[in-house]
């Protein structure tokens, strides 16, 4: 009998033991849900760090003598650079106004007339600079680092690109803040692997032991097959198929439960003052969860079927 037929027989035989199958399925589903919840938390912490600290901001200074028509053309082009989240531009006049507004806001309150400081110059006394404005045209450009890109090399490339624009005198960026965010994300990712390994081990042990218990219900069959001269693969292939199906169905059910959990958490946390948007796992992580559960369950069944 071919391996395919043996596997199909294993799937067909699942209906012979409905209660042990159901108990195993519930266990597989719950353990996969636990692992999925861990993934969901890690994913959302990572997203939150990226959202709050993960934007790359470049301040671009053109030389004071740069042609404003050229600069404005470059500003328009900047808005179409991939990953740009926001572009704020300042002409020398706008920069001066911004500076004056800032100084005014930070200056002490104007003294009352007649006081000894009444003749001191106010913040708006920069009017004498009109016509000899020393400030250059500038732009503050915020980027969302494309997914999958390592922040530092990406920022290096973007810095070189912006620095190479015609008339640009200087470019600065928020390297420290981004490094902090990158550090956080690296820490999360480093913590993720041991956590995922731990979950895989737990899934393997729990599913393996549960399948082993389920096989107690089939021990007569295994014994008889062995007595009539069945080779190990003839005995194990149907049980292996049984484990794979249990793992796959359990993994998919866990994803549905996880979606329900995520919807519930989102409704609960996306309110003032938290405004936490709990996102669902990306497609590849969902796929990986089902694949891992299926593989571990199949492997556990295979090992459990050994005498």
């Amino acid at each position: 009998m071919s391996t395919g037929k043996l596997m199909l027989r294993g799937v067909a035989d699942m209906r012979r033991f409905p209660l042990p199958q159901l108990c195993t399925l519930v266990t597989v589903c719950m353990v996969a849900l636990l692992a999925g919840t861990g993934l969901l938390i890690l994913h959302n912490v990572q997203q939150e760090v990226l959202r709050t600290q993960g934007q790359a901001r470049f301040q671009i200074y053109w030389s004071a003598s740069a042609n404003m028509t050229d600069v404005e053309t470059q500003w328009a082009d900047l808005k179409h650079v991939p990953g740009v989240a926001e572009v704020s531009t300042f002409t020398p006049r706008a920069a001066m106004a911004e500076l004056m507004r800032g100084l005014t806001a930070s200056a002490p309150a104007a003294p009352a007339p007649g006081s000894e400081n009444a003749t001191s110059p106010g913040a708006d006394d920069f009017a004498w600079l009109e016509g000899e404005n020393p400030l250059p045209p500038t732009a503050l450009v915020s980027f969302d680092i494309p997914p999958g890109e390592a922040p530092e090399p990406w920022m290096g490339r973007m810095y070189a690109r912006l620095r190479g624009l015609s008339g640009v005198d200087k470019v600065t960026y928020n390297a420290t803040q981004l490094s902090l965010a990158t550090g956080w994300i690296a820490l999360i990712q480093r913590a993720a692997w041991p956590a995922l390994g731990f979950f895989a081990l737990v899934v393997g042990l729990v599913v393996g032991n549960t399948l082993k218990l389920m096989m107690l219900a089939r021990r007569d069959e295994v014994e008889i097959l062995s007595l009539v001269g069945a080779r190990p693969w003839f005995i194990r292939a149907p049980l292996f198929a049984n484990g794979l199906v249990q793992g796959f169905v359990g993994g998919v059910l866990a994803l549905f439960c996880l979606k329900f959990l995520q919807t519930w958490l989102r409704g609960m946390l996306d309110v003032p003052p938290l405004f936490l948007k709990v996102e669902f796992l990306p497609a590849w992580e969902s796929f990986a969860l089902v694949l891992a559960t299926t593989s571990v369950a199949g492997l556990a069944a295979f090992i459990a079927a050994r005498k």
Partner: protein
Amino acid sequence: MVHLDHVTCILGGAQALTDVSLHVERGEFVFLTGPSGAGKTTLLRVLYGDLRPKSGAAAVAGVDLMRLRASGLPALRRKVAVVFQDFKVLGERTVFENISIALEVRGVPAGSIDRRVRAVIRALDLEERSYSPCRELSGGEQQRVAIARSMVVNPELILADEPTGNLDADLSRHLIELFKQFNTYGTTIIMATHNRDVLSWAPEARQVHLVRGQMTLPTAEVLSGAECVANLLSKRGGA
């Protein structure tokens, strides 16, 4: 077919078989007799590779049991069929499925399986129950299914462990007749029993007696029933 020389076997820390020697030729019918706990089942377990002897030499159907590995077990079990007192049939599966499973594991084509299973079912008078789940069958019918499963593969040797233990006298006699019938076709049969009626239904069979794991007849050469009687008579005459 079976060659055991000075076989000793340990089971659960205790010596279950001590210095057992047994030689059975192809086509023989042998009864293993003795009280409960004498070692009959242990001896049968050794013969179908479920227990490895601690010492001695043992070979069944050309397979050296002392060197038998797990990978070699299926090959032995394809030559040696086993029938148990508790039938060991799958209650959820039909009579046909229970019998055909022995052919499926050997990779016999589906058409041939169908033909051979139907023939055995007809021979054992189970036609009307072919597609009934075995849990719905009587004890006698279930035992016939177990015998059919062992017969359908045309084994070189059948080991039967108290196959009539759960059956009434009429059914028991019927089953012994079945075993005798297959024996006449050349199948070697070793049957464990402590039922004296069963022994009387097959007087031509050789009897091997076990007590506390030891054979009570000369170990090097187990005598046939007639030789045994002659031996005893000559001893009495000598005394």
